[in-house]
């Protein structure tokens, strides 16, 4: 039996295989029984995965593709769909977590066995999701939840794509974490394993949820488990503070999301997404839902002004957790926005798109400017994440804008750019955060002012992080550039919008995007140059050890993801096409496929095209020819000597640029964005101290006033508590009087 290579759903292939009477002796009857029991458990009453079948013998056809075991016993056929397999894998994650609790303090077992198994599960999840992307949507009802409110789950193109992102990125992160958690992180490793895998499982279930109830349960689980992961090292007060701030903002967002679902169900009482899709809200209520969704999901994503938790929580968490939060969790917020704007709300208004565009642009500009002036390597990456989330919102905003004007193919282009950026960011940001984890473990330093010259001591980490840095700067031929290219291409089409005001505004936005991309390169050169290049700024850096084998494996997986996604954009665009088909009804994959797999040409070849493979090939050819010709025609002699530095004799490591110095030009140009406090020493100090702190304006403009007002209001209400029992009896008496009056008046 050959696995067919033609397109078509997996189920059709399986049906054809049964009709051909194929049998694969894979596992035999035992496996059939297991599959049957799992199938029965997963299919809740009323929702059946079973179809009647004519065959009467017990055949077991193993799906070597992606996961459908087709067991035929008696005259019933059980088909385990992609969704069933995903639930099995998610259950596997939860099982790993429980095993972790059982082996609470066995670091070796947890790290060397449980986390790699979790990575394997993640990889399986990604593979199944990729297969499900090209298949029809599947639903399931889990017998969990309240008596009349079971969990509805649905696996459609959008969910499958985000599951692919979650699985692929977390595979690399889990492998890295297997090598990373070797020292005390303040929490027993088994407990960390539980929290980590519950986090992963809840993220996977969030994108699968098909009704508001299961969505909110999974959303809250995600927030809680990530809170515990952030405060893993809970004995440090700053980390507790960061975790609490994170939890607070997450819950403010969750309230907004809950209210949004309340608006979407339009007084029908049925909170399932299928019902919400069927409703048609008036523009007022639809806008209210959209604004609530933007607020709620924006709080989780880190949009201005709800971003303050990001630069606190990401540095406070252990590095694999930061990578997971930044690379994967922020994408669930993007999933939420896409689900609500395009799927649950039937029509979009143009000003929604303009709002997302403006918010995204402000966020991106703010994030990138602040990232260039940071002196802590993880804060720099956190602000860079804020910038990338802003760019994602810009792409989604463009998509909504085009869709509102019924320019569907252009909307598909903008959404494709945003979705490409989702997976690209997941890979390179995780890679960068994991790299900082290795550096932190090797040196014990997080501050950029105490690092330097690590390229020679940690070559593996250095070279792999270089790939991440190049991808993050949006440089060809890596993955960051493809997303940026598609986004800029969609900007070029905006002059066809009917609204002349928007037509004028959009070139300005495109210019701002280009500026943001250039500044991102600045921040990344600073990040890489100060940490890995130059001279070591502290003597203890000479003892830094390179990453362990498992850590290297995780970094290699993520780096190769960046490279592959950059060099082969066309297959991924075919996958993303399924998502845009679901959301908008059209996609760019057909035009892209028409132009071949070597060139990426979203519209016509004459209009725009980009071929990363030819790009790389020509550049490498030029480099090779240069090397060969120079060495052949001349020579390749090298002599090593002390650095020249224009002949200055006394060179120390302190003479090179500091991280702060590298950011000084940007600080000067963008002074209004940054709030800086400096304590300069005077020439008469015996022990001169230099102190600089860079703060966020929004903290002082928005959060502290809100906190003060809340406190004042709470104190006002607190005046009710006088502390004397006579007063409280008076309250009860007055309440009784009022109630009696009300009853009498009726």
């Amino acid at each position, binding site marked *: 039996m050959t696995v067919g290579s033609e397109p078509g759903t997996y189920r059709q292939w399986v049906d054809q295989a049964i009709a051909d009477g194929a049998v694969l002796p894979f596992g035999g009857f035992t496996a059939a029984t297991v599959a049957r029991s799992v199938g029965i458990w997963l299919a809740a009453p009323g929702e059946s995965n079973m179809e009647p079948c004519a065959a009467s013998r017990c055949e077991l056809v193993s799906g070597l593709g992606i996961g459908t075991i087709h067991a035929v016993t008696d005259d019933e056929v059980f088909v385990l769909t992609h969704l069933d397999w995903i639930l099995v894998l998610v259950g596997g994650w939860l099982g790993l977590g429980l095993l972790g609790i059982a082996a609470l303090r066995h670091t070796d077992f947890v790290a060397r066995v449980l986390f790699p198994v979790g990575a394997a599960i993640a990889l399986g999840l990604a593979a199944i999701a990729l297969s499900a992307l090209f298949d029809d949507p599947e639903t399931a009802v889990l017998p969990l939840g309240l008596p009349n409110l079971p969990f509805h789950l649905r696996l459609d193109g959008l969910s499958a794509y985000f599951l692919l992102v979650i699985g692929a990125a977390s595979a690399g992160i889990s492998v890295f974490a297997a090598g990373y958690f070797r020292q005390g992180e303040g929490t027993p490793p088994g407990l960390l394993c539980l929290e980590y895998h519950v986090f992963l499982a809840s993220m996977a279930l969030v994108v699968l949820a098909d009704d508001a109830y299961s969505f909110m349960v999974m959303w809250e689980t995600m927030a809680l488990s990530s809170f515990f992961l952030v405060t893993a090292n809970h004995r440090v007060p700053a980390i507790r503070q960061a975790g609490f701030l994170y939890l607070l903002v997450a819950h403010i967002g969750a309230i907004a999301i809950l209210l949004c679902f309340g608006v979407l169900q339009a007084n029908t009482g049925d909170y399932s997404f299928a019902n919400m899709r069927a409703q048609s809200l008036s523009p007022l209520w639809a806008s209210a839902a959209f604004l609530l969704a933007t607020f709620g999901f924006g709080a989780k994503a880190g949009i201005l002004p709800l971003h303050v938790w990001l630069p606190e929580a990401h540095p406070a968490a252990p590095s694999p957790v930061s990578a997971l939060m930044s690379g994967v969790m922020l994408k669930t917020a993007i999933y939420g926005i896409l689900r609500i704007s395009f799927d649950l709300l039937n029509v979009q208004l143009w000003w929604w798109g303009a709002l997302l565009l403006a918010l995204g642009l402000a966020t991106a500009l703010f994030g990138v400017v602040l990232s260039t002036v940071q002196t802590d390597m993880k804060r720099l990456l956190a602000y860079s994440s804020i910038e990338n989330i802003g760019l994602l919102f810009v792409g989604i905003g463009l998509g909504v804008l085009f869709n509102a004007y019924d320019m569907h193919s252009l909307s598909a282009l903008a959404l494709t750019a945003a979705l490409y950026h989702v997976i690209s960011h997941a890979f390179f940001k995780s890679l960068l955060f994991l790299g900082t984890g290795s550096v932190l473990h090797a040196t014990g330093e997080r501050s950029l002012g105490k690092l330097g010259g690590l390229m020679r001591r940690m070559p593996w980490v250095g070279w792999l992080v270089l790939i991440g840095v190049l991808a993050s700067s949006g440089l060809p031929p890596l993955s960051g550039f493809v997303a940026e290219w598609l986004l800029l291409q969609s900007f070029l089409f905006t002059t066809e919008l009917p609204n002349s005001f928007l037509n004028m505004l959009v070139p300005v936005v495109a*210019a701002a995007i280009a500026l943001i991309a250039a500044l991102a390169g600045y921040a990344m*050169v600073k990040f890489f140059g100060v940490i890995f290049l130059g001279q070591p700024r502290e003597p203890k850096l000479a003892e830094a050890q390179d990453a362990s084998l498992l850590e290297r494996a995780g970094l290699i997986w993520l780096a190769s993801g960046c490279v592959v996604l950059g060099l082969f954009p066309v297959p991924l665009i075919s996958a993303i096409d399924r998502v845009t088909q679901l959301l908008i009804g059209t996609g760019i994959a057909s035009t892209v496929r028409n132009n071949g797999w070597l060139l990426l040409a979203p519209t016509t070849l004459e209009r725009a095209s980009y071929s990363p493979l030819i790009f790389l090939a020509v550049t490498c050819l030029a480099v090779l020819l240069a090397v060969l010709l120079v060495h052949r025609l001349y020579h390749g*002699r090298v002599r090593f000597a002390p650095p020249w530095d224009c002949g200055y004799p006394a060179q120390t490591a302190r003479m090179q640029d500091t991280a702060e110095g590298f950011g000084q030009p940007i600080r000067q140009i963008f002074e209004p964005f940054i709030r800086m406090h400096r304590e300069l020493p005077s020439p008469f100090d015996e022990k001169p101290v230099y102190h600089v702190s860079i703060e966020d304006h929004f903290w002082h403009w928005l959060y502290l006033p809100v906190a003060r007002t809340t406190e004042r209001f709470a104190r006002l209400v607190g005046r009710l508590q006088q502390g004397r029992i006579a007063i409280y009896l008076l309250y009860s008496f007055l309440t009784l009087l009022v109630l009696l009056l009300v009853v009498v008046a009726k």
Partner: protein
Amino acid sequence: MITLSGFVSQLLEIILALALAPLLTGWVNQWRAWLQNRSAPSLLQPYRVLHKLFNKESVVAESASPIFRIAPYIVFGCMTLVCAIAPTLSTDLPLAPAADTIALVGLFALARVFISLAAMDIGTSFGTLGARREMLIGFLAEPALLMVLFSASLITQSTSLANIVETLAHQPFAIYPSLVVAGVAFTFVALAENARVPVDNPATHLELTMIHEALILEYSGRHLALIEWAAALKLFAYSCIGLALFFPWGIAGAGTPLAMLVAMPVLLAKLAIGGVLLALIETINAKMRLFRVPEFLATAFLLAVIALLVHVLLGA
């Protein structure tokens, strides 16, 4: 489909760029010297300098990582690709679909990032200073260049350079206001990116005023030769892109290989005039303080955005 004429024109362009780029630099140096009332070096002096440098031994700092040694090659490779996709003689370039204007800007950024990282690699004060300044210039010049190229893209409805030039060359003579404004912005950006006065003096020996030179202070021998050649290629590419966008007449179209025979002297004439103008600009202006450079580049950026807006408003 790669036709024979396409292949020949592509190869000819690359070889021409590699061969003529030092000549352009020598021409500009000659005119700068004559305008400053000095006696000029020979026109072929850059070739002799390259030959001398290639023969010399390369002295590398002990603390250098491999990035330091491979960066010159990568920069050279990037500039070669830039010259390959910029239509100098003909628009029939098989490599043109591989990289459009956005990828062109990305190529310049890639070269800039690598040379900055190489400058930071040794860990000297001047290297990191140069890296910081180069990234500052780049972060403002790159979006300005992109917006200039966008103005041309909006007029011709394409981002492929060969297509843009083909469309612009075959239209009846018309002055596009957006292209005029974009041309001014392009001149500013070209001056900044190629390290010319008033942004950076390529012949300076004062380290605290250097930008581009400070990046390559530690290089010697063949590495320095490759970087100098790459800088010459960058100037050549910028000149050719500017000429192709704003003065596209004379460039051979697709499928007319014999027109390249006419295109060659036209190109040489245009480059000669451009070189003289560049030398004139360099002589008339004084170098700006470093803190004024962001203002200069912001002006270029705003002019480029205005060019876009002019196109959107006027449709031309």
